[in-house]
């Protein structure tokens, strides 16, 4: 499942952050929880993706302190919400088409 979702890593991360701001570790945990543990991505691939999405203006981030440690918190921007809506529509169409073809 991890390899199949590689091309959809960005919208999946955006979807997780749509419900609220999270730090990197929490994003990964939330991905695992929402997929019932099926989404077994290598954890380290999420961080470069978070940085990339921020550079594209789809996320913004800021420092906070938790348990005495500095922590980077990510949240969705308005562009990020639009991108998520667009990728969701794209996925639904794709899934419907493939679903109609498969036995």
């Amino acid at each position, binding site marked *: 499942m991890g390899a199949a979702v590689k091309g959809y890593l960005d919208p999946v991360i955006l979807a997780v952050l749509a419900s609220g701001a999270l*730090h*990197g*570790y929490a994003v990964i945990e939330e991905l695992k929880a929402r997929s019932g543990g099926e989404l077994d991505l*290598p*954890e*380290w*691939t999420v*961080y*470069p993706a978070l*940085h*990339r999405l921020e*550079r594209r203006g789809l996320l913004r981030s800021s420092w906070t302190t938790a*348990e005495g*440690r*500095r*922590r*980077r918190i990510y949240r969705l921007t308005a562009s990020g919400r639009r991108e998520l809506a667009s990728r969701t529509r794209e996925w639904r169409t794709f899934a419907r088409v493939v679903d109609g073809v498969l036995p």
Partner: protein
Amino acid sequence: MIDELARELARVGIRGRRRKRILTEFADHLACDPEAELGEPRQLAAQFADELASDAARRTALGTFSALAVVAFAVGVPQVTLPTVPDIAGGRSMFLIGPATLAMVIGSQIAFAAGALAALRALRFGGPQEVGLIRRRVAVALGGGALTAIGSALYAVNFWSVVPSWWALLAVAGAGASAVPLAASALAYMWSSSITVSHKEAARGLSADLGPLARPWLVGAAAVGTMLVATSIFERSVVEGALRGSFEAILFLGCFLALRRPLALTR
């Protein structure tokens, strides 16, 4: 793990605040889950480097193309406002006007071609394996832009006593003003080039930029034909048109042979 990641990030050219941020995020991750499998530091650093270098190369290419548009304006305005073209032998020295004219003619065409191709590849980006090609195109474009500006300044200096003083000042000021966007792009280029990409595969050829129009000889024929027709009309001389068209053909062939490999000008 964090120390090794710090070394690997530095090795691929990720330093300063960006590196500190990555290390802080991973340290936080390990504090949350000391058993977390965060992969090989070398692989991780390479992934960040590829992402950052791709982003920086694309931005630099588009920025350079914009900078060259400013240079074209700053150098082009004096050229079109020159009241009368001075006699080529009427200036300070033939040793000055020859290199100055060549620099303007060759530099401007190289800057336009390399800058446009860099911007096109940035827009039709195919992955980190194309970062090296974009960087080379940007470097050549910036060199061409600088050559054009220097040529324009030398042209004005050569004819300083035979052209209106306002025009000479305008030409030198235009060349000087060109230095600002060129220097800004050169700095961005140097920063983006400091990051090492892990992908060493060959980039796609010219067809990735121009699609079915990726035929260098067709582009060359169009350039030569334009020079021939335009010169024949403006100079009212077919002979002059043929001469400049021939010069353009030699110029195009020389540049194509010299830059074919570094700029991936084959299909």
